[in-house]
């Protein structure tokens, strides 16, 4: 075996420039695939990092399960069942309603429990206080934008009471407006999310108002991110819909892997060129060495021996091409990072762009390098099969007569 390769390398050594050119051809193809794949991988890693940074991986977002025609509501018994699950620290149910003031200003209202604030730790008071749990009168905390609107349109501020209505539908489907008086207990700082446009009330008061039996949603806090998926599965087993940041990460991963494979595949077209070069060069080599092949057969080599000799040369080309391709690929990915990052950052802008700024947009993994090397090796061998077979089938006498 060792001698086979030493012989093959001697044969290749006679045609250094030619070998260098094919190796380079393959290496460039491999480098293109590695570069593109590393870009896909880099963006995937960045996206996942950003999701991890902005999401709590221990929180599961549960909503009513919708399946075909039937809806599974989040009832109290479901809530209890979830609470009993292992690894669940606490649950934070909420209801969502729409209230309207006497001056026809609509308020998106969420009825929450104190646990809700443990999930959304970004909810901080700008002024005033949180409503008291089970207080003897209705209190409300306004989101930042809601507070501004109410103060401008209705001249309401901290400590003011105002009348609001919720529209309910009776059994015959007739609308019925139910009024209630709320006192503004506090105003939130801007959270930069949906809460700026919501008003929060205690869940007990909210349920008294809307007379609903079920919750509109709930958050589940687990003790460790590792169990988020399994707890989520159990919740889905109850017929409800569960989402966690891990689901988002999974989706991003799936998407980016698919995109990377498609890109890698198309950049791999350059590999076809490399493969054709190998085929061409090896066919030329068989022609040039026809007489030598005939001689080798006359000296006792079998067809398989001849085939092995040519394939060994292809293996050497593939190995060198793979190593060179990996090195060029690393260089290419660094180049993409240097040239492509400023472009991507400015194109994406905002938070997403800023997130990219800190890291690298390409990522080379051992897997990518191993794949590059394997592609080069397999490609060279496959490309060499036809020429090698052709060489092995030469008639020794005809081959010897060749001038």
């Amino acid at each position: 075996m060792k001698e086979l390769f030493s012989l093959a390398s001697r044969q290749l050594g006679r045609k250094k420039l030619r070998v260098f050119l094919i190796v380079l051809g393959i290496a460039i193809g491999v480098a293109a695939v590695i570069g593109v794949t590393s870009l896909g991988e880099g963006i995937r890693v960045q996206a996942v990092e950003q999701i991890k940074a902005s999401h709590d991986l221990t929180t599961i977002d549960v909503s009513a399960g919708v399946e075909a025609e039937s809806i599974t509501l989040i009832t109290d018994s479901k809530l209890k069942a979830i609470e009993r699950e292992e690894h669940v620290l606490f649950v934070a149910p909420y209801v969502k309603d729409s209230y309207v003031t006497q001056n026809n200003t609509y308020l998106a209202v969420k009825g929450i429990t104190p646990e809700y604030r443990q999930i959304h730790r970004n909810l901080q008071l700008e002024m005033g206080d949180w409503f008291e749990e089970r207080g003897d009168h209705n209190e409300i905390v306004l989101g930042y934008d809601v507070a501004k609107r109410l103060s401008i349109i209705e001249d309401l501020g901290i400590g003011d009471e105002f009348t609001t209505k919720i529209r309910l539908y009776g059994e015959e489907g007739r609308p019925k407006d139910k009024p209630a008086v709320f006192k503004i207990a506090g105003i939130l700082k801007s959270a930069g999310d949906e809460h700026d446009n919501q008003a929060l009330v205690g869940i007990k008061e909210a349920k008294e108002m809307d007379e609903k039996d079920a919750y509109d949603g709930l958050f589940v806090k687990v003790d460790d991110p590792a169990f988020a998926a399994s707890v989520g599965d159990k919740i889905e087993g109850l017929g409800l819909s569960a989402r966690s940041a891990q689901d988002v990460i999974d989706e991003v991963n799936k998407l980016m892997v698919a995109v990377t494979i498609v890109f890698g595949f198309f950049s791999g077209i350059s590999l076809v060129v490399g493969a054709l070069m190998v085929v061409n060069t090896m066919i030329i080599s068989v022609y040039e060495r026809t007489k030598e092949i005939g001689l080798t057969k006359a000296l006792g080599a079998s067809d398989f021996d001849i085939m092995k000799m040519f394939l060994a040369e292809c293996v050497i080309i593939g190995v060198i091409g793979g190593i060179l391709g990996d090195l060029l690929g690393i260089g290419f990915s660094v180049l993409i990072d240097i040239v492509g990052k400023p472009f991507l950052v400015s194109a994406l802008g905002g938070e997403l762009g800023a997130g990219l700024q800190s890291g690298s947009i390409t990522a080379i993994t051992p897997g990518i390098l191993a794949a590059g090397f394997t592609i080069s090796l397999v490609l060279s061998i496959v490309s060499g099969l036809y020429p090698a077979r052709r060489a092995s089938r030469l008639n020794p006498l005809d081959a010897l007569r060749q001038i």
Partner: protein
Amino acid sequence: MTVETRDLTKYYWMGKEKVVALDSVNLKMEEGAFISVVGPSGSGKSTLLNVIGCLDAPTKGEVYLAGWRVDYRNKQSLVRLRRKFMGFVFQTFNLIPALNAVENVEYPMYFNKEGRSKSERRENAMKLLDMVGLEKRANHLPSELSGGEQQRIAIARALANDPKLILADEPTGNLDSRMGKSILDLLRRLNEEEGKNIIMVTHDLESAKKMSKVVRIMDGRIQ
């Protein structure tokens, strides 16, 4: 090894013209014999050598090597026969340019699967180089050697797997008379001292007469 041909016939087609290369050739060669085949160009002498050497198949007739009939349809057995029992010497030397002298001599041993270890092969190759008087040239590439030296390397290579039969196709054809003589001397020595059977195709009738039994061939027939 005895060699015997029975009604050995070979034709091939050049376009629509049938060319008779061998026409019912019956040849018997005793153990340790040296036969020179002479004849004009196109008389079929090389074809005879190639058929006996298992490089070419006859149209009709049979070849017996050491009493065994050669089965020309069994490619693997032809490969084995060439590997174990034949040593070829060509007019144009046919050394492998990428390999140096000693590696060229080792080359056939490499395909002999029941062969020796690497060091044994090297030892044997050096011994053969010594025998042809070129041990000092072991590390030279063919391009650095004269024609006579190359042919001596080629003879050493033909002996690599210790064959019973050496088939030489005009081994002196590309050499001047002095070098040619040294090659013929070498072949005679192999025949006399090592007991190798040799079949040589040649134009040099005078030399052939001195050292071997001469077979004349004309239009594919032994005269």
